[in-house]
């Protein structure tokens, strides 16, 4: 903190020791600016986060909708049942599979494209950037609808192209083995543009002197990438790992539109299972416990990633 700032701070503290109309006016102005946001935020975001926690200890169901206070307290019953629920475990396994394969692929391809755009080429940069970014801003629902047809075993473009080279493609979304990899491929395709844009900004912030020094020392392209680019990009990579993981843990739209969680629950995600419990079976208490377990998983994963990826420098 700079000296004037400290002085200013001390000044305020002195003013605060005596009851002062000025201080009250400052508080009032601050809260006047904050009030519209804080009220909306409090009612529709902060309160629901707490309410969801409370709901997870109740047997809240359809008949409690008109009288939420009258629902029954069941202590940890929902959590115990969730942890014994085989469908929950397969949803968790599928979500973990999606994250652990999807996140590294998305970031690796995003970094590859960003590196290619940053070095080597000088023309059509904007066209490439726009093209790769396009799916990121497009509705997942629209993309999922289009990809469902692309992957259609009889009428889809992919199997049509495969037939052209004499390969008979499988029923991508109907086959328990291929369904999740197909959804991962689609998610990577949709999100790599976001990674590309963020990595591109990170790459352009690396001082070119580092590469010049490297080339004087005779480093190869790969060595420059490995020993200059990657270490310099570490904060950006950490940020992208955390953001992408948090997003991917909440997988929902893709299986909702493309597979409805099938075949054989192989693409059922945690959020989708929560949605089914809450709005198909109307077990809101049970679903809230699932939502909170996901919340805790997101928090733990983000914390661990910060801890381990950062200390790795």
């Amino acid at each position, binding site marked *: 903190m700079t000296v004037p700032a400290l002085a200013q701070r001390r000044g305020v503290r002195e003013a605060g020791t005596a009851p002062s109309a000025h201080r009250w006016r400052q*508080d009032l102005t601050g809260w006047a600016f904050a009030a519209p946001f804080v009220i909306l*935020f409090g*009612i529709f975001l902060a309160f629901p986060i707490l309410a969801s926690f409370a709901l997870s200890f109740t047997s*809240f169901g359809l008949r409690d909708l008109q009288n939420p206070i009258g629902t029954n307290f069941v202590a940890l019953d929902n959590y115990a049942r969730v942890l014994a629920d085989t469908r929950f475990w397969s949803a968790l396994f599928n979500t973990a599979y999606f994250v652990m394969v999807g996140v590294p692929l998305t970031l690796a391809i995003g970094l590859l494209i960003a590196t290619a755009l*940053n070095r080597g080429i000088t023309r059509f940069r904007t066209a490439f950037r726009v093209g*790769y*970014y396009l799916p990121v801003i497009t509705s997942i629902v629209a993309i999922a609808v289009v990809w469902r047809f692309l992957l259609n075993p009889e009428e889809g473009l992919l199997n049509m192209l495969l037939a052209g080279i004499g390969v008979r493609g499988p029923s991508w979304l109907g086959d328990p083995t291929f369904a999740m990899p197909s959804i991962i491929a689609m998610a990577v395709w949709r999100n790599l543009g976001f990674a590309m844009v963020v990595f*591109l900004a990170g790459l352009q912030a690396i001082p070119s002197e580092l590469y010049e020094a490297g080339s004087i020392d005779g480093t190869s392209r790969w060595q420059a990438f490995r020993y200059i680019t990657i270490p310099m990009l570490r904060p950006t990579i950490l940020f992208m790992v955390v953001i992408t993981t948090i997003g991917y843990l909440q997988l929902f739209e893709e299986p909702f539109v493309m597979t409805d969680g099938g075949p054989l629950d192989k693409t059922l995600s945690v959020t989708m299972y929560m949605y089914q419990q809450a709005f198909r079976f109307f077990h809101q208490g049970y*679903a809230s416990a699932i939502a909170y377990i*996901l919340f805790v998983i997101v928090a733990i994963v983000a914390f661990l990633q910060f801890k381990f990826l950062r200390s790795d420098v």
Partner: protein
Amino acid sequence: MRAAARSMPRVATRGKPGQRAAVWIYVLLVGGLLLMVGPFLWMVLGSIKPEADFLKSPPTFWPSQPTTDNFGRLFDQLDFPRYFFNSSLIAFIVTAGNLIFCPMLGYALAKLRWRGKGLVMAVVLATLMVPAGVTLIPNFILMSNLGLVNTYPGLILPFLAGPFGVFLMRQFMLGVPNELLEAARIDGANEFRIFWTVVMPLATPVLATLGILTFLGNWNSFIYPLVMAQEPNMYTLPVALATFATGQYQADHGMLMAGSVILVLPVLIVFILFQRWITEGIATTGLKG
């Protein structure tokens, strides 16, 4: 950004082996670009294909006879103009709300002194990471009891004040020089005047980024309107498309492709007009669109 690009080492592209490398980079990038754009092309072509084209074996890539029938059916048999209106109305109001409420709080957090500031900031930033599923069920119960399920307020209110916007605006406000605000205060302007006449005009580029990202995010949002819009008259475009794609029209290729085009086209136009705001705004703030 451009200056940085120009100063990048060109060593690699100068020599002959380097030139070969550049050719490979172009091949890689163009190949990748085809994969990125391909599904969009397939969507647009599909939307103007007559039904017969989908039944052919093997299927055709180009439409045998381009037609607007698919779009016609969206408007005649289904109520797509209504869904389009719902999506637009909700996205516009939500964007307007965020463009007013987020900078106000951002300014108070960055430039004003008031008791409770630290707490408000900590709570708002802590919710950045909360999964959307966590607030979904209580909001549904709340809206049911307020009688707001299947209404515009029910679809709009929870999104008028988003924590991302506060984070973004606060970061920007911190960079506004204090001298500028002091000068205005000495001239006798109160904080609201300073905010409207000094700070907001300076913030135009950040507001543009926030506005575009909020609009796109809301236009594409799905799980919340899926729960809250229970009757077709309140469907947004993504909810309508997903409902028809998983329901009685699931085999109607042409119509679903046309519906996807209607959902994607406005976003495409916004993106092409403002792509610089979006990609640079995201690169500097790390915000997700």
